[in-house]
């Protein structure tokens, strides 16, 4: 098994004058659950379509599971994918649709009942696809992607159109799939959804790469500050003055103070603040670093042009 599940270099797709994907480089380690993040029209689906042999790149090269993307037949049997929206035959049942695609791919249809159970469609596999709700269709799409027990899953907006309960269930399902050790690349423009389930991120905008690497590295890179809240409200101004006197930049947010970190060690800063409050006879009920959300970080990169 290669240590890189997926790698592309200079990947570009132009439709006439419009550039959908622009000189994109991605390298995805084996075994990660990678979020492919970008706003609508950022080039996520086009990139995935190129990885799956549906769209031919204008320029660039790459490999999927060690084989060139110019020869998708060399790796597609080891890749499961759901791209754009689930596509099945409406007159066939869920199980019959899975059997159809298993036959096309030369996969054993025996695991179909287990796959239906995995995606929460047990008992509904015999119903016609046209009778399925949107959430059930998405689940069947995941089940189809899992046919043949693929090493790499490529899922394009699997939670698209789902209600909050459906989004939560889809997130749990992806987490469950990730636990089985396979590599997963899942796209979404819902950043909070990806933040919770992905340990690797690829951020793109306007077809260009903004960031790729571990989720933790991106989010731990910058904190939103250190939140401090004394037990008594009347201590707020006293504590603010005390901290400002010690050279900290302090903002008041609702019932708490937020101290800018400015590159300092958050742990050392927290200890220092706690000691100062204690010395002044105050009891703190909150002393916690404010983690930057993926949404905050992504927006700052897009707006700030960070690469």
């Amino acid at each position: 098994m290669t240590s890189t599940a997926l790698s592309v270099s200079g990947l570009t797709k132009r439709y006439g004058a419009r550039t959908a994907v622009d000189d994109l480089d991605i390298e995805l380690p084996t075994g990660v659950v990678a979020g492919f993040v970008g706003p609508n029209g950022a080039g996520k689906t086009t990139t995935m379509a190129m990885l799956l042999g549906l769209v031919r790149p204008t320029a660039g090269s790459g490999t999927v599971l060690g084989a060139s993307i110019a020869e998708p037949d060399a790796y597609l049997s080891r890749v499961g994918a759901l791209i754009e929206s689930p596509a099945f035959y409406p007159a066939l049942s869920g199980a019959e649709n899975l059997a159809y695609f298993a036959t096309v791919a030369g996969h054993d249809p025996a695991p179909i009942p287990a796959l239906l159970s995995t995606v929460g469609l047990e008992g509904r596999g015999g119903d016609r696809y046209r009778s399925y709700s949107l959430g059930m269709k998405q689940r069947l799409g995941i089940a189809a992607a899992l046919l043949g027990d693929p090493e790499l899953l490529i899922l394009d907006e699997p939670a698209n159109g789902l209600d909050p309960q459906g989004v939560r269930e889809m997130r749990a399902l992806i987490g469950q799939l990730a636990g089985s050790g396979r590599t997963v690349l899942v796209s979404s423009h819902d950043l909070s959804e990806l933040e919770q389930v992905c340990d690797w991120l690829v951020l793109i905008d306007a077809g260009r790469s903004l960031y790729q690497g571990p989720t933790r590295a991106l989010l731990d890179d910058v904190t939103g500050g250190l939140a401090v809240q004394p037990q008594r409200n009347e201590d707020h101004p006293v504590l603010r003055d005390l901290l400002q006197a010690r050279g900290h930049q302090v903002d008041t947010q609702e019932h708490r103070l937020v101290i800018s970190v400015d590159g300092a060690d958050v742990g050392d800063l927290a200890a220092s603040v706690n000691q100062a409050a204690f010395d002044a006879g105050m009891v703190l009920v909150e002393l916690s670093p404010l983690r930057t959300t993926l949404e905050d970080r992504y927006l700052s990169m897009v707006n700030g042009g960070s690469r």
Partner: protein
Amino acid sequence: MTSIIRAELHRLLRRRTVVITAAAAFAFSAVATLTVFSSAEATGQASRRAGATLASLTGNGGGTEAFAVGASFVGFFVFVTFIALIAGEFSGGTFRAVLLRDPHRLRVIVGKLAGILLVAAGVVALAEVFTFAMSLLVAPTQDVATSSWFSLQSLGDGLRDYATVMSGVAGWAVFGTTLAVIFRSAPLALGVGFAWAGPFENIVVDSWDAGYRFFPGQVLASLIRGGTIELGAGRAVMTAAVYTAVAATVALVLVSRRDVTA
């Protein structure tokens, strides 16, 4: 390609589809037999377009005459059926979904066409058998003798009728598939196909006889009828073969080169 064909057969040969198709074949047989036998003239020149004569029904191959005459009118139905089936694969995204499992585009489109054609071949065979049986029942009521229907020559005539109809069906299928590939939308492809093979060709040939020899729809109609006054069987086969090859090439080039975005 065999896996694509097997999957298509599995998809199409479900009990409900088989029952409906068999019922349609039976209905076709009943209508064709009753129409041909009731309209058969005592004398005259028999043709697939003008209908049968009592003499042609009594002779060798008379048992499948109603099938051959009736089938000569189903070309347009075959055309729109293939447009709807193949264009639906594109607009519904199932063609894309299949390519995620088998990226050989030509193998996929040819396999799908072959699978549907195999089912069509079965339906045509069923219709011929039904029509023969129906003809046996109806013949006595029209004083048509059936003794020569069981000769070896009649068997050969029946097989020839089957091959003629299937060649026409295959031609219409390829043209329908080509339109479906070009437009990738069932309503659009059906609209264009219907307008061209329906009103346009038939209106033009009313005032331009050469159209019978050149328009694809007219050529395929001549082929499925085993030749017509305007276009003989041999030339119909040759012209249809050239047209079908061109249409197939267009479809295959488009499928292999275009991005799959739907």
